[in-house]
């Protein structure tokens, strides 16, 4: 009985999740070379049906999730999107659609707004068609997005522009900020590509130089002052040049979880890159049980798992040791200190890799494909 006590105590300390990320599908009309979907994507026939997603949404709400993010792939390829949004809304979730928006038209916007959708995040691959359509691998994508942004604003919903930045479009950052203001967005997320999945495959074509990054940071700092009260700017820097890691997912299994198209429950969308973890599915177990007891969730939850130099570090409960997937991608060990941290023995290796690849850099993308 005695050795059960610590686990029970640990369990009692697990707070409810703040948000559920629903990857409704991996299908998408775009082919972004930094897509966060896994290299092995779920096929359409493996996707969960409407009734199962509705049950998952209800379980998430009962577990304490406050926000429901509908994502993909492109969630709008699902015919039942408005139905799922409505269900989430009725369950009290704050609903957010993360979309490329190329499939959004007046009729669909109306149905989603009626269903109770609160917030739309539209990704932009550049500030004008030339680069944007090249990165997306789809002609006319950019003009469709601009039209879609107008529909969102006209429907009275909150709009966020997701600007995914990398070496090939970073010079367009000022124009991206203008685009967000003109589109009537309240927020822009200026996110440098994070290198997992497809982006890791394309790192040499994407990673910015140190000088480019410093210039981007200066532009963001300026814009924050200039646009105070007009546009909220969230800024995610690439870790490669950082001295301390980002607080990845606000800590493993602390606030978020991700449900894949086929029903696997992950602590983070990239977690499947950690090959030795076993993920539970919503078909096998209730979400509450997965959140509290899943082996994958408890593997890196809290601070007990931490190695030196994280263990005892005064930032252990601030950055939670950084990103597990990045630790794996660079050091080969998902349980290592994130090499973005200057205290990691692998930090210099990662920095050199960024410096070399960004200087030598290829301009060729490997586009994502789904068969």
């Amino acid at each position: 009985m005695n050795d059960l006590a610590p686990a029970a105590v640990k369990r009692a300390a697990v707070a409810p999740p703040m948000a559920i990320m629903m990857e409704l599908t991996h299908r998408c009309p775009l082919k972004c070379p930094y897509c966060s979907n896994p290299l092995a994507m779920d096929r359409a026939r493996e996707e969960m049906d409407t009734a199962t997603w509705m049950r998952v949404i209800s379980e998430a709400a009962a577990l304490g999730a406050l926000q429901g993010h509908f994502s993909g792939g492109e969630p709008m390829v699902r015919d039942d999107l408005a139905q799922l949004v409505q269900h989430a809304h009725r369950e009290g979730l704050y609903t957010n659609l993360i979309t490329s928006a190329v499939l959004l038209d007046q009729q669909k916007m109306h149905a989603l707004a009626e269903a109770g959708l609160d917030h739309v995040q539209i990704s932009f691959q550049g500030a004008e068609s030339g680069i944007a359509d090249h990165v997306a691998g789809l002609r006319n994508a950019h003009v469709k997005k601009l039209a879609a942004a107008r529909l969102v604003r006209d429907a009275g919903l909150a709009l966020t522009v997701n600007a995914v930045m990398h070496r090939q479009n970073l010079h367009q950052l000022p124009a991206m900020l203008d685009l967000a203001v003109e589109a009537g967005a309240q927020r822009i997320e200026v996110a440098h590509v994070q290198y997992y999945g497809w982006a890791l495959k394309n790192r040499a074509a994407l990673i910015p130089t140190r000088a480019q990054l410093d210039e981007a940071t200066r532009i963001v700092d300026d814009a924050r002052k200039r646009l105070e009260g007009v546009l909220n700017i969230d800024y995610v820097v690439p870790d490669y040049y950082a001295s301390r890691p980002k607080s990845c997912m606000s800590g493993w299994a602390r606030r978020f979880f991700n449900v894949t198209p086929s029903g696997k429950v992950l602590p983070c969308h990239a977690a499947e890159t950690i090959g030795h973890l076993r993920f539970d599915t919503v078909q096998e177990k209730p979400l509450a049980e997965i959140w509290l007891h899943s082996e994958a969730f408890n593997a890196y939850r809290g601070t007990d798992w931490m190695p030196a130099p994280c263990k005892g570090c005064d930032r252990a409960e601030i950055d939670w040791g950084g990103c597990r997937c990045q630790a794996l991608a660079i050091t080969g060990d998902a349980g290592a200190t994130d090499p973005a941290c200057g205290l990691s023995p692998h930090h210099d290796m990662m920095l050199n890799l960024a410096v070399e690849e960004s200087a030598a850099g290829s301009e060729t993308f490997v586009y994502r494909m789904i068969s």
Partner: protein
Amino acid sequence: MILTEASVPRLPRHVRFRFDAARNCHVLLAPELVIMPDAIAVAILEAVDGAASVGGIADILAARYEAPRDAVLADCIEMLNDLAKKGMIAA
């Protein structure tokens, strides 16, 4: 936008305010943002109905809590302006 005693505050379409049973507290929800307002803020937000003015809300709360109206009004203006700056209150 700065709210005054005469302003009529309301929650914008994309902001939600509700009770959360899992945490046993009220939550204010906006894009990528969850705020857990304290008891005073909850009392003020409950009175925000798109019809009552800030002054009207102060009247109600001053009477309910038998508190000096000036102090209540000052609290209301400060809190609502704070939320307005974040885009979570419109008028």
